[in-house]
Every structure is written in structure tokens, then in C-alpha cells.
């Protein structure tokens, strides 16, 4: 994986050789006296290349290889400037050319000066095929990039190298490049890379030039990429699609405390026995006892946390916001998790359920079309969406949503937290056995309302006579092993 943090360092390392290369190549070009050639190329690319190739092949107009040998230069200049006038005025050659090319008129180019025309003709005359010039790149390439290309792409993405066609935009300011715990509705670099990889036959040109949503149009205004930039970005995407994104690293405070205290304790011990620099022994003892206390506490906390996953909030394949759906739009939990009331599992909605609404709602205010398109893509390709599972009990525990939702009438939020306020869902509770059992001890069952509990005759008598106020899950056997483990 590329280390983003060290990018600046590497820029410096690379800047000098890069500059030297650039200067050298510039010197080389001017030394061959080829400035006119470059001017001609620019004019040709801008005005002519849409219809003409400099080869024997026809594109829209005829191939222009050796055209200066076929025709007189003066005639050519005249024809380029205003071909239709020549045809109408009865120029024989012009007429022939017009008829031979399907009577498609060539636009006039009266804005070109004589010098420009000379440069263009010079360029056509002296045109060197691509292989020799290494300017054109395969913008459809999907794999097999060199390290240098990948790094250049990465810098472009981060805005460390400006785009040639001048724009202040840089990709990384909107598209996330590391996994974080806040929801960025724009597609992340991994999303982009995967979309780029998946769509065969398209390249970044096409994607950028036909934005799918208003949001995308607005945010990419003025962005034009050159061929080699596209190529380099492709290289970067190819790399990202392979390596994935990096997680944000948190500062290891607890580990540092642990180690520092360990070091202090070792010092205190050494001083106590060997050096005896500190006079008062209670200082040593306080340090050692205090340190031990912290160590044990930390070990216990970390120990109980092992394989528990409270606060786990992984990135999901779609930037689905429960806050938007359940909070703002007030969609009922069971509209999507429809089997929670009738099955062991709550169920993750099928993409075709999403389509109930997203047939109409095709773009989001913040995410544009990119995220919603993933539903359509799933349905088109027949590949369902691999959601990342957050709540997972150990294998030897059997939990039934139906038992809790239907029979127990427990609110979803009691275990899952205020999901309607979460953009990214996280595991709100630790799902440990102690947590389960404590709830079973406190919570009352639907004793009076559910006829099933009539089996408990003695409890019913006590309940009716007011001897007990409520019947907890524990009282009907809710903390027996075999209620959950079998």
C-alpha cells in the first residue's frame, strides 16, 4: 500500500531528477529547431484531428499523409481556409475532393493566419509517427503499470502535481483516501477505482465528460485531463483497486502508558535495589504499586475486550445512511428488516426491496448517483451487495429476533442503539453474555398480555393478587443455559 503520509518526502526526493529530465528534454526539443513543428501539432490537434489522420487511412475526411506532395501548398492553404467557396466557385480539384468524401463539407478555418497554415503543413509534412514520440498513451489500459506511473497518478489525485489544463481542483479534497469513521458521501478513491476497473471499454474521459448527476456536473466543472494524466490516474486506480484503502491509525496512548509505567517501575525497582539514589523508599513503593495497579486494570480491560466488538463501525460497500433513511425519512425499521418479527435473523433487505423506493429516487442530495447506482448495478449484474456484518454473536449462541421483537416487544434501539441517528452504523452494545443476562434480569415479559404465559400458574396467581408487580425474563427461566446455548 502506498503511504500517503510520506508523499511529501518522496516528492522532494524525486523533484530534482524530474526537473533535470524536464529541462533536458526541453533543451533537446529546441535544439532540433522544432518549435514550429510543436505549434503545428497544437493547431492540428485542436482543429483537424477530429476528422483527419496523418496516415493513408480515412477518418471523416481523407488521410493526410503526403498531402503536400499531392497538392500545391497554396491551393491547400486556400482550401483549408474556405473549402466550400472553392467548390462553389467551380475549382475542379476541390469539387473532386468534395465528391470523393461523401459531400461532407469541411468547416472553414479563416481564423488561421498564414503562419499557422505554414506550421500545420510543416507538421503534416514532417509528421513523425507516435511510436517515435511517446506522447500518446493507451488511456484504456487497466493493468500492468510501472511504479513511477502509479506514483505520478497518486500525486495528481492529491493535487501535488497540478493538472496541465489548469484547474485548481484536486480529487483528494472530495474523494476520501483513507477509511474514517465519518461518512463522506462522495465516492472514495476505492469506489472510483472499482468502478473504473469494472467498466470495460470506458475510460476516464468518457466518465468525466458525461456526468451522471447534477452534483457530479457541478463539482467537476472546468476539469479537463490530458491523455497522460488520464493514463497516470488509471495507474493509480489500478493500484488502489488491488491494495484497498488504509485505515486511519489512532495514537497508541494506552500502549505508551503501559510501556512508560513499565519503564518507570523497572527504574524504581533498580533504584530500590542497586542505585539507591532516591532516599525515600515510599516513592519507589508508590510507583511500583501504582504502576502495577494501572497495568492490571489495563490488562483486564483489554482482556475482556478481546473478541468483543463494541463500537465496530466498518465501511459498507454502499454509503448507506440510516440517519437519512430511518431518521430524516422516518422509514420504519421493519420496512427493510422485515423478517425481524418472524425469524431468527432480522434480515438484510434484498436489492429488489431497495428498488421499491429507488426506482423513483435515483439520486441523493449528497451522494449524487454514484451510491444509488450500486443498487442498479447489483440488479443488472445479478451480484448482490456484500454488506459487512456488524452484529455477530458467537456460534454457540442462538438468538431469535422474533422472540425479542414479537414476543418480548423489545424496541430495536434497546440493543442496536439510536440507529436513526447514525450515518455509519456502529455496534452500540458489547453483546456480551453479561449484558444479555443483566437485561433478562431486569426486563419484564408480556406476562398479562400473552396467553402463552398462562402455563405459569403460580406466577399468575401472585401477579393477580398483586404479590409481584412484574414477571421478569429470569422468573420464566430466561437465564437458563439452554435458553440460548444448544
Amino acid at each position, binding site marked *: 500500500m502506498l503511504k500517503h503520509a510520506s508523499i511529501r518526502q518522496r516528492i522532494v526526493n524525486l523533484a530534482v531528477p524530474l526537473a533535470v529530465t524536464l529541462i533536458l528534454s526541453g533543451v533537446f526539443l529546441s535544439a532540433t529547431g522544432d518549435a514550429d513543428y510543436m505549434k503545428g501539432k497544437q493547431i492540428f490537434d485542436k482543429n483537424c484531428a477530429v476528422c483527419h489522420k496523418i496516415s493513408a487511412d480515412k477518418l471523416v475526411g481523407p488521410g493526410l499523409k503526403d498531402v503536400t506532395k499531392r497538392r500545391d501548398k497554396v491551393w491547400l492553404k486556400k482550401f483549408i481556409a474556405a473549402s466550400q467557396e472553392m467548390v462553389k466557385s467551380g475549382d475542379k480539384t476541390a469539387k473532386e475532393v468534395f465528391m470523393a468524401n461523401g459531400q461532407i463539407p469541411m468547416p472553414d478555418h479563416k481564423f488561421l493566419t498564414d503562419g499557422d497554415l505554414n506550421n500545420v503543413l510543416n507538421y503534416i509534412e514532417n509528421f513523425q509517427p507516435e511510436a517515435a514520440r511517446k506522447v500518446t498513451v493507451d488511456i484504456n489500459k487497466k493493468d500492468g503499470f510501472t511504479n513511477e506511473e502509479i506514483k505520478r497518478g497518486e500525486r495528481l489525485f492529491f493535487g501535488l502535481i497540478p493538472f496541465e489544463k489548469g484547474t485548481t481542483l484536486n480529487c483528494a479534497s472530495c474523494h476520501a483516501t483513507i477509511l474514517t469513521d465519518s461518512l463522506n458521501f462522495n465516492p472514495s478513491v476505492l469506489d472510483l477505482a472499482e468502478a473504473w476497473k469494472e467498466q470495460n471499454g470506458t475510460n476516464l474521459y468518457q466518465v468525466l465528460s458525461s456526468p451522471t448527476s447534477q452534483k457530479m456536473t457541478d463539482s467537476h466543472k472546468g476539469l479537463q485531463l490530458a491523455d497522460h494524466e488520464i493514463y497516470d490516474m488509471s495507474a493509480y486506480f489500478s493500484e488502489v483497486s488491488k491494495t484497498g484503502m488504509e485505515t486511519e491509525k489512532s495514537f497508541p496512548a494506552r500502549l505508551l502508558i503501559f510501556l512508560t509505567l513499565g519503564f518507570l517501575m523497572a527504574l524504581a525497582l533498580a533504584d530500590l535495589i542497586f542505585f539507591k539514589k532516591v532516599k525515600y523508599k515510599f516513592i519507589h513503593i508508590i510507583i511500583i504499586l501504582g504502576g502495577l495497579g494501572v497495568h492490571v486494570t489495563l490488562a483486564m480491560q483489554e482482556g475482556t475486550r478481546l473478541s468483543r466488538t463494541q463500537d465496530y463501525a466498518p465501511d459498507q460497500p454502499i454509503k448507506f445512511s440510516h440517519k437519512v433513511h430511518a431518521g430524516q425519512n422516518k422509514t420504519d425499521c421493519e420496512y427493510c428488516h422485515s*423478517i425481524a418479527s418472524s425469524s431468527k435473523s432480522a434480515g438484510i433487505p*434484498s*436489492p429488489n426491496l431497495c428498488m421499491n423506493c429507488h426506482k423513483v429516487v435515483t439520486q441523493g442530495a449528497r451522494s449524487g448517483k454514484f451510491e444509488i447506482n450500486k443498487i442498479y448495478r447489483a440488479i443488472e449484474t445479478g451480484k*448482490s451487495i456484500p454488506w459487512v*456484518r456488524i452484529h455477530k454473536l458467537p456460534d454457540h449462541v442462538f438468538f431469535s429476533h*422474533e422472540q425479542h421483537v*414479537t414476543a418480548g416487544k423489545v424496541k430495536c434501539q434497546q440493543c442496536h442503539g439510536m440507529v436513526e441517528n447514525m450515518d455509519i452504523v456502529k455496534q452500540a452494545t458489547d453483546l456480551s453474555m453479561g449484558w444479555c443476562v443483566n437485561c433478562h434480569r431486569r426486563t419484564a415479559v408480556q406476562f398479562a398480555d400473552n396467553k402463552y404465559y398462562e*402455563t405459569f400458574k403460580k406466577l399468575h396467581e401472585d401477579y393477580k393478587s398483586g404479590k409481584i408487580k412484574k414477571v421478569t425474563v429470569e422468573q*420464566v427461566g430466561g437465564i437458563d443455559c439452554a435458553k440460548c446455548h*444448544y
Partner: protein
Amino acid sequence: MEKKYWKSLEERNGLPVENPGKMDEDASRSLLELINEEIADKPSSRRNFLKFAGFSFATVAIATSCKNPVNTAIPMLNKPEEVTPGMANYYASTYFDGQDYSSILVKVRDGRPIKVDGNDLSSFNHGGSSARVQGSVLSLYDDGGRFKAPMIGGLETTWNMMDLEVGKKLTEVAASGKQIVLLASTIISPSTRKVIAEFTAKYPTTKLVTFDPVSSSAIRQAHQELAGQAVIPDYHFENADVVVSFGADFLGTWLSPVEFSRRWATTRRLTEEKKNISKLFVVESCMSLTGANADVRLAVKPSQQAAVILNLYNEIAAANGGKTFTAPKTSVDVKKMATALLAAKGKSLVVNGINDPALQIITHAINFMLGNYGTTLDLGSTLNLRQGMDQEMETFVQDLEAGNVGAVMFYQSNPGYTYAESARILQNLKRIPLAVSFATAQDETSKACHYVCPDHHFLESWNDAEPKNGMYTLQQPTIRNIFNTRQVQDSLLKWSGSTSDYYTSLRKTWETDFFGKQSKYGSFNDFWNHSLQDGVFEPQLPEWSLASLNLAALDTAAVKAGSATVSADTELVFYENIALGNGSHSNNPWLMEMPDPISKVCWDNFAAMSPKMAEKLGIATGDVLYFENEKLEIPAFVQPGQADGTIGIAYGYGRSNTGKVADGTGINVYPYMKAVGGFRAFSLAVKEFRAIGNTYQLATTQMHHSMEGRPIVRETTLEEWQKKPAAGNELHEEAAKNNFTLYKEYEFAGHHWGMGIDLNACTGCSACVIGCQAENNVAVVGKEQVAMTRIMHWIRIDRYYSEDPENPSVYFQPLMCQHCDNAPCENVCPVSATNHSNEGLNQMAYNRCIGTKYCINNCPYKVRRFNWFRYATNDAFDYNQNSDLGRMVLNPDVTVRERGVVEKCSFCVQRIQEKKLLAKAENRMLQDGEILPACAQACPSGAIIFGDLNDPESRISKLYKNERNYHLLEEIHTLPSVGYLTKVRNREGGAEA
């Protein structure tokens, strides 16, 4: 007088019981290799200690520091309405393997069939099933055995290529005028018969040859001669007060055991109103399940049977004024039998399992004289099972050898294994232009076929069945075909040039043939959907036609039977194993490891001989015998009750080219079962045999669970029970009297689950064992481990003998965790991994268990099992749990146990929880009988009931009040939650006959 019960001959004779766990040197070595031979053998040293310590610390460090894995939860793209993830769907379907039939209910969880049970809507099996039906779901996931694609010459190919080649060959053969033979076991599907007819229309030289390895063609032949139609009547045991069976194991294997078990069991129940039970006489050579349940059992040599049957006929005929014949004298006294039969005229039944038409004619003549046709014998709704006539097969083999056959196609038939002279078929398959196998899984015949067109598994197929005249059932796919297979019917239709597929053709058959037989549903779609949902369509069954039998054939038959002489030689008797049947399921590890109900041996067949004969010849269990002329080598097993002068051997073993479980397990004895006079013989006289001096270890579960002579089985006779219902159960009263405690007793606020087993209804068939195994993910451990007493079954059938070892009385007792309310296991657990629930369950928390095994030691019933290995995912236990496909059968509602924990019967607590929740969701109380543990559901005779002891109206509460009810070892005050009803035998005091 106190009767003495014993479980093995060594125990009875007071000999020291050899520790069955003692393994030979080689076997124990291979287990140690699981660790590391080098380290295990060396003395412990500092270096070794450091090595192990370092390894352990590193493993723990890595295991705990690893991050939690990222799990994905992938929803269905488009969830069908009827599918709810996490909840099971049930589909009615049909089980028919060419021999046994059952209407079934398939439990499908998240797209995977995981359990097969009987369909309670069927009047055939009424929800009951057999071990093989229960085990059949596992064969769906047989990774190694099943064909994965069509094959030509051993190479995988496509169906298009196959159709092209086979089509060409078929046309060639048809043009040459040679026969195209479809060799199949019995076909009971009306729609499949239509498909075959269509195929025959296209290729007119087609001939259907039906070959049943375990044939009943003599019954059909007898009825051909007696009633003018080659049928097998339906036997109504439920109407019979007296049943006499000549070698027909109708509770275990004969014709339709699931149905017959239920029918017979209804006559054995005792209630307030019904104070009589039927009486069962069995005359047989090997100790069969039916013989074990008999009131009077007589052990005779097969060659003696003719004389016994003829003598019985004479007795009956004499009393009835019929014609008698000269019969050879026999040592067997048939008078008592005859008296009993004559006393129950019209309410009796004589059945005969011997494949000899002469004896069948006499048997059915007896039935006719007793007026049983129309009451216990039904010629209207006749059985369509076992349609094969042995003569057809003989003709086919002759035709094949003579070169008259150009093409053979094998459907549900494996004569390469089951036919006596299989080489005559297999050798010729190479010579003929076209040999096609439709086998689902590899077998001996498919190996010799150039073309293999694998059929779907029956759980992947559409089909229908007519097991009895006028009783129809449907089979529907419960999963999409796992491999690139195609239904036989579709293959045949394709080759016939038909454009329709089998499903369409099946629907058409039902529309044209069956839709009109009912008036309940107006549209065919309605009718079809309802039939499919029920699985069965049972219009009014045909009338029981009381045929007037033509007894002309009797004379010849009687003369033939009268001239039969008792062979002086030792006779081999070939019988069917309860678990494996005819051998087509041998590659099923569940069935292979199911202990035979009688011998308690699994993973092998053996030569069973009587104790007297063994003593005379100086042979002990495990000695390898060699039969000189037959070139047969097989270990001996001393079996009480085996007729003197006979040796019983089970067929269905010794397969090759089938898969890892069956290949080379046991000895194949089909080669010795040749046809005699056109009918397959199931016995053979042998001249010379001897012990060759080797011994062979048979894995038996017999000695594992000995209860050391305590009063476990309680029995009485009908006469005494009628006098005093608590007869034989006097100890119960005494135990109840002493039943007090100083300790606080459990209070069961809501439910108190209990189970009751009627020992009179239990036949010992072991369907519950496999049902439990399928439901509770019980691991298969293999022969070596079974021999070390490590079988994992949660429910076992204990079998006890009493009285004469040459012809003992036999008792079966299903034993699972007794869920004691004062459980000895609970108070020795140091970590409280096993404790009592407020519903009376003895619960077992695997994740808490640390494997001290104290509970196992302290359990007086020996029902707890220890996981010595991690059987799932361990390649040393190469059965089903170590492959992804094999694990598909696991029940997701039951934990797969880890190594080092104890497990046992949970009363199917997952089902209890499920039904309780259903009641809560529907806002009602639980109904009695709603919760069915897997064993109770599987039981074909309804011997096991389950319910709430706190509900005074429940069946279980009533059973507990029955005077026959007792608990195992109740005198030690464990307060079990399982009650047994004493066994009541219909015999006069002591042994008869």
C-alpha cells in the same frame, strides 16, 4: 423368580469380559501419529518442554492478537416471498430407492435440505420413517460418490455431446433389430412408465427388465397361480390377532417395514379400553428384528421351513375339513400355532418371506382357509413394490450373452454388484454398442458402462409414485441440482425426440389420469398445487376384493414341499441388514455406523452362528472363517438365537467403486445368492469351512454401556397384566415409597418436560438413532473409534437377552439422557457446565465445558459422550463433516461440538424453543404433542411420546400414571424424566414351544 438378563455370552457365563477398547498395536499407533510420533515416544526433556511451551505461547499470542475477521452478510438479490432466511421450509415429497417407499417431508433451511421425516398426511407411513429414510438426506451431499457431470469413457462431457452420441447409437441398435434393454429396479411411478412407453414407441425393440436384488417374485408367482394375477397383497397386521411369520422380517426389512411396524404396533398397545394384544409366532433361521419381537420364536434351518409350513397347513386343513398332504415329520410342534390361528379365524395372518413359490402357495392357502383374505389380506389395493420377477433377469442375461441385446441402460439398478454372477453382465457390457448407466453415484455397474448419464438425486427430482393401487404421491425438488446431472426421465424424453420436459409430462399425466378421480378441486392447478403441498393424493382406495382362490396349484406345491429334505450340511442364510438394506446406501456413513439392532455390530458384516455350534467347532467371535468351495473369508460372530446348523451373513456389504465409506467395508455375499428354479435363493448349503486362525476385530457397541445386572428391563405376560396391571413393575411402587429427600426439590414453574417410551410398541428398528443423528449434528467416528467405545450417538437402543442362549427372549430399550431431576452428573461438574433448567431439562453448555468427564463417570445411564477429537473439519475422520458439501447437511440450530467437550441428548431443546416461540407469537398456550423431538418424530410405531408433565391432561402425564410406568434405576433416586412402560408379552408363563 428373578429372571437373569444378559448382554453377551461372556457376561452370562461369568467369564471375564474382554475390554472392547483394547486395540491391536497397529491401530493405536496410527492414532498416536495424530500428534507426532517422534515427540510422543521420546521421554520429556527440557528441550521438548521449551519447544512445546514456546509453540503454545506463540499460538495463543497469535490467536488472541488477531483481529476479528470481517464477515459479510449478503442478502438474496430478489427474495422469494416464501423464503425467510433463518427459518425452515417444509416440502412434501417421496422417497423411493427402488426397494423401500416412504412419503416424506423435507426440511429445507436456507436452501439446503437438512432433514427428511415421514409425511404425516400419508396413510402409508403416517409420519413414520426408517433409518434409511432418515439417512437419505446425507447421500445428497456425497462429495466423493456422486457423479458431477455426464461421462463418456470415464471423461466428463456435455449433455449435448452425450445426446448426440447416445442418439446415434440408439438409432443404430434399433435399426439392427437388437434389443434395447432398460434394466431397472421396481418402477412405481406412473409418469415414468409413460416416459418409457414413449421411448419404446420411438425405439420399438425396447424392453423393460425389472430386477429387484431382494426379490419377492415368489409371492407374485403364487398369486399368479392362486388368484390369476401376479400381485403382492397388502398385509393388514393391524387387523390380526395372531400373526405367524416364516422368515418374513416384516418389522425390519420385509416388503414395507415402516408401514407394517406401525400396523403391528397398534395391536400391541394396552390401554384402559384395549386389554388384549396380538400374538406373534416367528419361525426363522437368523435372529431378525421380528424374531426379537416375537412372543414365540422357533429357530429352524431354511431347509426345515417346508416341512413346518406343510405341517401347519395340514393342521389347519384337518380342522377345516380341507385336503391334507403327506408331510415329513419335523421337530417343531406346530399344534400351538395352529390352535391360535384357528381361534382367530379371519383375524389372523400367516406371512412368508421365503422366495419359493411352492411355499408361498401353501402359506396363502392357509390364509385363505382361515378366511383372512378380505380382512388381513387385501387384493384390491395391492402393493406395487418389488415388481421384479427373477426369471426376467435370467432371460436378460442369457439374451445378453447370446448377443441379442444391443443396448443396456441401468436405472436405479446395480446388477454389477447385486446380481449373483455379475461378471456375466459386466464382461458383455464392453462388447455391446451401448451401455448407459443412470446412476446418481458411482457404482460397480457404472464403472463398466461407457456412457454415464447421472440422474438427479431424489431430493432434486420431479417424480410421482403409486406404492399401492390407488395411492399416489408426488416428489418435488427441494434444491436445484448440485452437479451437472439430468433426470433419467428427461434423458429418455430427449432421446425419444420429445420436446417436452419431464415436469410438463408429469403434470400432463396427473391432469389426464388423476384429476378426474376427485371432485374437491375444480381446476387442475388447484388440484396440482394441493397435491404437491400435501405430497399425497389418496382417492378412495379400490375395494378389497375377496378373491376366491384357485387351489389347483396347491397339490403340486404341497408335493414339492413334502418331498423337501432337511439338509444335513451347514446352511448359509443371507439376510438384510436393518441399516444398509440391499447395499445401495452403503456409502452413507450414518447408516454404516448404525449398530445393528440385534448384534450391535457396525462397520462390518459377519458370519453369525449359534453358541452351541460355536462351542462345538471351537470358534469364538472374531475368528476368521474360510468356506472352501465358496472361497469366502469372513469373521465369525456368536449370535444367540441363530438356528443350529446355520450361519447368517448380511448382504449389502463389500462394495467397490462407490466411495470412501463403503468400499471394501465387509464382504459381498451376493455372488452366493443364485437363482434356484428361476427364483433367487437366500440360503445355500455349504460342505466345508474352517477357522483359518486369524482373528478380526468387529466393532461392536454391545459391551459399552452395560448396566451391570440392575433391574432395567421389566416385563410381564399378558395374562398377569390382565390380572394386575402393575405386574412385573412391583419395584416401582417400592421405589416410590422410599422416595423422599432432605434437600430442596426443584420447582418447575412453567413446563416440566418428560418423555415416555412404550416398550411394547418399540420394535428396535433404530430409525430414532439416525433421526437424532441428523437433527443434532452427531458426528460419525469410524470403526476404530467405535471399537474404543467412542461412538457419539445421543440415543442408543439397548438390547438384552434372557433365558436360553440358543433361542433367547430379546428386549429393546431406547436409551437417551434421562434428564434426571436429581442428576448425578450435575453436581460433579466443577464449572457448572451441566445443570438443571427450570423446565426440567438437564442442560449442557458446551462453551462452558472443560472436559473433565466427571459427569460421564457419574452418569448411571452412560448416555454422555466425549468429543475426543474435533470431528468436524478433521480429515482423519473422512466421512461427511470434513468437506464443504458434506457439512451442508448440518442443522444450523444445533452447535457443532468442539474437541474436548461432553455432549448428550438435549430433548431436542431447539425444537422446544421453536415451538414455545411459535405459541408466544400466536398468543396461545402450547398444545400437547406439538413439540416432537427427532426420535419421536422418526419412530414408525409411535413408541415415543413427549410432553409437559405439569399439564395433567397431557399424554405424558397420563403415561406416568399408568401402572406399567417405571424409571430406570429409580431406586437410586435420580428422578429421571423418562418413563418406560413394561414390556408385556403374549405368552404363557415362561418360554413356550
